[in-house]
C-alpha cells in the first residue's frame, strides 16, 4: 500500500509537471492542484534555504497557514518540538541533492497541533537541467497510519486521541480524516483500491477484489448515472474528475463521498490511467475533513466538560454535542448532530434564544456564564426543565460557530424554592408566634427591629432602631439587671448567650413583661475576639405572668384549705377542752368576781375560734358536698330564727321570704353557712350606725346571659337571696376584692376573716352567681343566685296513713335531681330511714362499708357512672339476700332488667307513684324477712353476718 501510495503520487507529481510544459498546462495545473485534497507547495530550489513560492488551497486547510503567511518562508516552519531529526535530514538531503523522496514526518499546524505528514518531494529541473524548484506534495496520514496499524513516527500522545471519545465519533473522524485512493489501469481494467477506500466502501481490506463493477455497484443508484458520466467526460475531455455522491456500503450504510481524480495519458494523448482520491464526508457535509482534524483536540475538551456543551454553526444547526447534552435532553449523539438547536428549547423560548445567538455571533463577544440566559430546555420526551445557557462564539478552522454551554439548574431551582418555602415558614411562624426579633451589627453599628418587635414594644414602624431607645423602654427597676446581662453576653470569654425576663414600659405607659433571649457571635480582630453580630428574640409574656400569679394564688388557697382541713381536728379537740372547761368553771365563780368575767371572755373567744375553724373547714371542703333538693325558704326561715335573738337592738331585721320559691339542689350545711355569713357581714357593716337588715328570697328569671364579678350568669330561673344592709358601704375597689380570703379593705386588726370568700366559694360551687352593689354611707346589697330546680313532675301527696309504712334503712340511689327529690319525699313520708346518694360509686362505697345495715336498695336505672343493675349485682355479691328495687323509665328497660341480677328484683316504672311504691317495698321487705330468721331490732339485720370488708375500712380510714 505504501508503494502504491508513493508510486501513485509520484506518478501524479511527475505527470503533472510534464503537462505543465504544455500550453494548457497552467490552467490545468492550477485546476488540478487546486482541486486536489493534497497540500502542494513549490519551493525555489535556486535559493539555498528553499523558500516557498507557491501553495495550493489544500495546504492552508492542511496546515492552517495562508499563502501570504508561508510564501517566502521555508518549509521548516512546519517543524515542531517533536519532529524527528531523521526525517528532517532526509528531506534536507533530498533538497540538496535535488532528488525525489518520500518521508513521513511529524509536522505542526499553525495552531500548534501536530499531524503526521507524508511528504513527497519531486524535483523540477529547468531547460538547462538544473534544479529550479521542488514540489512538495503533502498528505495528513495521522489517522490512516493508525488505522493501517503501521508503525508511526509519532509520539505517543497522538494515539491517545483515539482512546477518548465515543465509538461513533472515532468512526466518523477516522472515516472523514482519511482518503481512499483508487487507481484504474484503463488498458487492463485493473482497479486498485487503498485499504482506506476499501473500508470506506464497507469492505475489510483484502476481502474484496475491486473491479469497475464493484465500484459502479457501490455508487448510490440515484447518483450512479451522474458519476459515471463525469468519469466519461474526464476520460474523453480531460476534465478533472470532481464529483460528490453517495455510496452504499454492503451493510446498507449510506455515506457521502467526494471523488477527485485525474486521467493520465500517454504521449499520444490516450488515457492510460485513471486515478484519484475519495473522501468520506458523511458526518458533516459542510466541514472539510482537515478542519475536522484540526478541531479534534477541541472536541476532546468539549467531550470531557462537566457541563453540556454544544457547537452550533451559523445556521443554528448542532455540529457538536457532548454526552452530557445527550443525557440532559434525551437524544442520541446522531440525533443531535444536524438538528437545529432551537428544537432543544420550547417554542416560547426560541425567539430569545435566536436573538441571543445572533447577538453573540455578531459582536463575537462571549456572553459569560454568569449572565447566562435562563430558559427551559425541551427534552426528547416533551418534558421541560430549567436551564441556564452561555453563548460563546468560537472561531474555528471551519468558520465561526457558537459554543453553547447548557447547565441543568433543576436542582438549583429546587434548592431556591425550598429556601423560599423555609423562609416563608419561618416568617409565618415568627409572625404567628408573635416573636420579636432584633439584630445588631456591631461593626456597622446598625440595629434592626422586626415589625413584631416594634408592636411588642409599642414603637412605630418608622422609628429607627437605636440601642438607646431600647434601654429607655426597659422598666427602670430592671435596667440594671438587663444591662449587666448584656455586658456578660458581650464578653467573649462567655458563651455569648443569655436569657432574661424583664419588664418594659411602652410609650403609652403600659407595663408588659417580656422574655429576652440573646445570642452574640464573635469574630477575631487582631488579638482578641470582638462581638460582631447579636440576635435577640423577644416574647411578650405578660399573660403568662398573670396566669402564673393567679395560679400561685389558687395554689395558696389550696394549701390553706389542705392545711386547715388537717389542723381542724386537732384544733377542735383543743377547743372542746377550752370551751368545755370554761363552761364548767363559770358557774363556780361568783359573778362579782373578776374571774367570772375573764372566763366569760375565754368562752367568747373560744366560740369565735370554733366559728373560724368551721369556716376554714367549709372553705377547705367545698368540693365535697352532698346536695339535695332543698326548699331554700324553709332553710332561710330556720336560719333567721337565731339571728333575731343575736342581732343588736340597733339593727332591725326585716324579711321577705317567698314560700313559693323554687327549690334548689344544694348542700344544707353550706346553704346555712352562706346565709349566716351574709347576715354576719351585714350586721358588722352596721355595727356602728345601726340600721336595717333585710333578707329577701324569691324566684328570679334571668332573661339573657349576663356577666357578673363571679362569672357568667346564664339565662334561666334562679332562687335569688338578697341581703341588704344600710351600713357604711364599700368603695368599688374594695367591693371588687371583697371575696378574697382575709381581704377586708379595713386596717389590720379589724379583719373580717373568711366570711365572704366562703360565701363566694359556696355559691360558685352550686353553679350560682353573686352580685354586690355598694355605696359609701348608703349600704350594701348582696344578691345570691342559685339555679332553681325544675318543679317536680310528680306532686308529692300528703302522707297517707292507710299506706303501708316502715322504718327500715333504705339506700336510695338516683342521679336525676327531680327524681331524687320526689323519691326522697315519698320514702320519707312513708317513714323509712333514708340514705340518699346520687351516684353508683358512692352507693357502692356506702354499701360495702356495712352491707348488713341496708335493708333495701332502691336504684334508678339511669345512673351516670355505674348502672343500677351492676350496683345491685355487686351488692348482692356481698349480701345475696338484699332486696332490690330498680326504677326504670321505659318499657324496654323494664323487660331487660332483672335478668342480670341474681335473685329477687322488682322493677318499678317511672314516674313513681307513692301508693304503688309503698306496697312494693313492703312486699319485697316482708318476703325477705319471712325467708330469714326474724330480727328484733328494726335497725339491724341478721346479726352475726355483718362484716365490713377490709377494703371498705381502709377506704374510710385513709380518707380521713
Amino acid at each position, binding site marked *: 500500500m505504501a508503494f502504491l501510495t508513493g508510486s501513485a503520487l509520484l506518478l501524479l507529481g511527475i505527470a503533472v509537471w510534464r503537462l505543465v510544459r504544455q500550453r494548457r498546462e497552467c490552467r490545468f495545473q492550477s485546476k488540478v492542484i487546486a482541486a486536489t485534497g493534497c497540500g502542494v507547495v513549490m519551493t525555489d530550489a535556486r535559493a539555498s534555504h528553499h523558500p516557498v513560492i507557491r501553495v495550493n488551497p489544500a495546504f492552508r486547510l492542511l496546515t492552517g497557514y495562508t499563502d501570504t503567511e508561508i510564501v517566502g518562508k521555508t518549509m521548516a516552519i512546519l517543524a515542531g518540538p517533536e519532529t524527528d531529526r531523521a526525517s528532517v535530514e532526509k528531506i534536507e538531503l533530498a533538497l540538496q541533492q535535488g532528488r525525489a523522496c518520500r518521508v513521513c514526518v511529524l509536522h505542526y499546524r499553525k495552531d500548534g497541533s501536530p499531524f503526521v505528514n507524508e511528504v513527497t518531494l519531486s524535483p523540477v529541473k529547468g531547460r538547462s537541467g538544473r534544479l529550479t524548484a521542488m514540489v512538495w506534495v503533502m498528505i495528513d496520514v495521522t489517522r490512516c497510519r493508525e488505522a493501517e496499524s503501521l508503525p508511526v513516527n509519532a509520539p505517543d500522545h497522538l494515539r491517545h486521541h483515539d482512546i477518548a471519545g465515543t465509538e461513533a465519533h472515532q468512526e466518523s473522524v477516522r472515516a472523514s480524516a482519511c482518503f481512499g485512493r483508487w487507481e484504474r489501469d484503463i488498458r487492463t481494467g485493473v482497479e486498485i483500491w487503498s485499504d482506506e477506500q476499501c473500508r470506506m466502501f464497507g469492505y475489510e481490506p483484502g476481502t474484496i477484489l475491486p473491479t469497475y463493477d464493484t465500484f459502479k455497484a457501490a455508487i448510490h443508484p440515484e447518483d450512479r448515472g451522474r458519476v459515471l458520466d463525469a468519469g466519461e467526460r474526464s476520460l474523453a475531455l480531460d476534465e478533472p474528475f470532481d464529483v460528490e455522491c453517495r455510496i452504499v456500503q454492503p451493510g446498507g450504510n449510506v455515506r457521502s463521498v467526494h471523488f477527485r481524480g485525474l486521467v493520465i495519458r500517454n504521449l499520444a494523448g490516450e488515457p492510460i490511467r485513471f486515478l484519484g482520491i475519495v473522501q468520506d464526508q458523511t458526518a458533516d457535509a459542510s466541514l472539510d475533513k482537515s478542519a475536522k482534524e484540526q478541531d479534534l483536540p477541541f472536541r476532546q475538551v468539549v467531550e470531557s466538560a462537566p457541563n453540556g456543551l454544544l457547537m452550533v454553526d451559523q445556521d443554528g444547526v448542532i455540529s457538536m454535542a457532548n454526552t452530557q447534552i445527550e443525557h440532559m435532553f434525551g437524544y442520541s449523539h446522531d440525533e443531535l448532530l444536524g438538528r437545529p438547536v432551537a428544537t432543544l428549547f420550547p417554542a416560547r423560548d426560541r425567539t430569545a434564544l435566536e436573538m441571543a445567538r445572533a447577538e453573540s455571533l455578531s459582536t463575537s463577544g462571549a456572553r459569560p456564564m454568569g449572565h447566562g440566559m435562563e430558559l427551559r430546555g425541551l427534552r426528547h420526551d416533551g418534558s421541560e426543565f430549567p436551564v441556564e445557557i452561555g453563548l460563546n462564539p468560537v472561531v474555528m478552522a471551519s468558520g465561526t460557530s457558537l459554543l453553547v454551554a447548557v447547565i441543568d439548574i433543576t436542582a438549583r431551582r429546587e434548592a431556591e424554592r425550598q429556601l423560599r418555602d423555609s423562609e416563608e415558614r419561618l416568617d409565618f411562624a415568627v409572625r404567628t408566634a408573635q416573636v420579636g426579633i432584633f439584630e445588631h451589627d456591631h461593626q456597622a453599628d446598625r440595629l434592626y427591629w422586626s415589625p413584631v418587635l416594634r408592636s411588642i414594644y409599642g414603637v412605630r414602624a418608622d422609628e429607627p432602631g437605636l440601642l438607646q431607645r431600647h434601654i429607655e423602654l426597659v422598666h427602670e427597676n430592671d435596667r440594671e439587671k438587663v444591662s449587666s446581662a448584656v455586658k456578660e453576653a458581650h464578653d467573649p470569654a462567655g458563651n455569648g448567650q443569655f436569657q432574661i425576663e424583664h419588664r418594659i414600659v411602652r410609650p403609652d405607659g403600659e407595663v408588659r413583661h417580656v422574655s429576652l433571649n440573646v445570642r452574640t457571635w464573635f469574630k477575631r480582630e487582631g488579638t482578641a475576639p470582638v462581638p460582631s453580630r447579636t440576635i435577640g428574640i423577644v416574647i411578650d409574656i405578660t399573660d403568662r405572668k398573670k396566669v402564673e400569679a393567679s395560679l400561685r394564688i389558687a395554689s395558696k388557697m389550696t394549701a390553706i384549705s389542705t392545711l386547715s382541713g388537717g389542723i381542724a381536728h386537732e384544733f377542735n379537740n383543743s377547743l372542746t*377542752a377550752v370551751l368545755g372547761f370554761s363552761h364548767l368553771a363559770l*358557774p363556780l365563780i361568783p359573778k362579782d368576781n373578776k374571774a367570772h368575767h375573764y372566763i366569760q371572755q375565754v368562752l367568747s373567744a373560744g366560740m369565735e375560734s370554733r366559728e373560724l375553724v368551721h369556716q376554714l373547714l367549709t372553705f377547705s371542703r367545698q368540693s365535697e358536698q352532698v346536695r339535695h333538693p332543698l326548699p331554700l325558704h324553709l332553710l332561710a326561715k330556720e336560719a333567721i330564727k337565731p339571728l333575731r335573738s343575736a342581732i343588736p337592738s340597733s339593727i332591725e331585721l326585716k324579711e321577705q321570704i317567698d314560700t313559693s320559691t323554687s327549690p334548689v339542689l344544694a348542700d344544707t350545711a353550706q346553704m346555712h353557712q352562706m346565709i349566716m355569713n351574709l347576715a354576719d357581714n351585714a350586721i358588722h357593716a352596721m355595727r356602728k350606725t345601726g340600721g336595717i337588715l333585710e333578707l329577701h328570697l324569691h324566684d328570679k328569671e334571668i332573661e339573657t346571659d349576663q356577666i357578673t364579678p363571679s362569672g357568667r350568669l346564664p339565662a334561666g330561673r334562679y332562687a335569688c337571696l338578697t341581703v341588704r344592709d344600710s351600713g357604711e358601704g364599700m368603695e368599688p375597689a374594695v367591693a371588687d376584692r371583697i371575696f378574697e380570703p382575709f381581704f377586708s379593705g379595713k386596717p389590720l386588726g379589724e379583719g373580717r376573716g373568711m366570711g365572704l370568700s366562703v360565701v363566694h366559694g359556696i355559691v360558685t360551687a352550686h353553679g350560682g352567681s353573686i352580685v354586690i352593689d355598694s355605696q359609701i354611707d348608703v349600704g350594701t346589697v348582696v344578691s345570691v343566685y342559685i339555679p332553681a330546680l325544675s318543679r317536680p313532675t310528680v306532686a308529692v301527696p300528703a302522707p297517707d296513713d292507710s299506706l303501708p309504712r316502715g322504718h327500715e334503712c333504705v339506700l336510695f340511689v338516683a342521679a336525676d335531681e327531680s327524681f331524687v327529690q320526689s323519691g326522697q319525699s315519698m320514702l320519707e313520708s312513708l317513714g323509712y330511714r333514708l340514705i340518699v346518694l346520687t351516684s353508683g360509686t*358512692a352507693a357502692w*362505697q356506702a354499701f360495702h*362499708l356495712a352491707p348488713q345495715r341496708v335493708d333495701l336498695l332502691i336504684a334508678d336505672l339511669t345512673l351516670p357512672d355505674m348502672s343500677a343493675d351492676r350496683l345491685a349485682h355487686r351488692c348482692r355479691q356481698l349480701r345475696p339476700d338484699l332486696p332490690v328495687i330498680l326504677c326504670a323509665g321505659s318499657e324496654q328497660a323494664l323487660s331487660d332488667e332483672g335478668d342480670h341480677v341474681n335473685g329477687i328484683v322488682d322493677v318499678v316504672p317511672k314516674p313513681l307513684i307513692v301508693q304503688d311504691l309503698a306496697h312494693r317495698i313492703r312486699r319485697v321487705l316482708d318476703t325477705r324477712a319471712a325467708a330469714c330468721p326474724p330480727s328484733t331490732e328494726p335497725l339491724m339485720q341478721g346479726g352475726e353476718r355483718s362484716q365490713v370488708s377490709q377494703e371498705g375500712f381502709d377506704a374510710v380510714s385513709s380518707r380521713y
Partner: protein
Amino acid sequence: MPSVLVIDDEDRIRSLIREVLEQAGYVVEEARGGKEGLERYRAHQADVVIMDILMPDQDGLESLVTLHREFPSSRVIAMTGGGDMIGILNFLDVAKMLGASRTLQKPFDVNVLLEAVAAEAGVSSIRTVPSHH
C-alpha cells in the same frame, strides 16, 4: 344511775366529759382508745358509749363496728372533730351505717352533749349546765 363509757385518746376531752356528766349525775367510765374501750364494755355494758371514732390511729371506726357487732343493742354516740365528710359520704350516714345511734360534732356545746346522752340513755335531762349567754 345511767352509766356512760367515754372513749377518747385525748386526756383533756375525757376529763371534760367526765366533769360534765358526773355533775349531771352519770357514772362515768373512761377508756383511752378503742381496744381499751372494748375491753371495758365487755366487762360492763354501760348504758351509753361516747366514742371519738375518728381518732388518729383509726381504731375508732373498727372498734365501733366490733362493738356493735358484739353488742347490737349498744347505744353509741360517735364524736367527730374533723368535719362531717368522709370522702364523698356524709359522716352521719357512715356513722349510722356502722352502728352509731347519733353523732356529736366537736367542739360541742356541753348542753348539747347532755341532751344527747340523756336521749340515748332514755332519760330526760337530769341537770343541765346553765347557759353562759
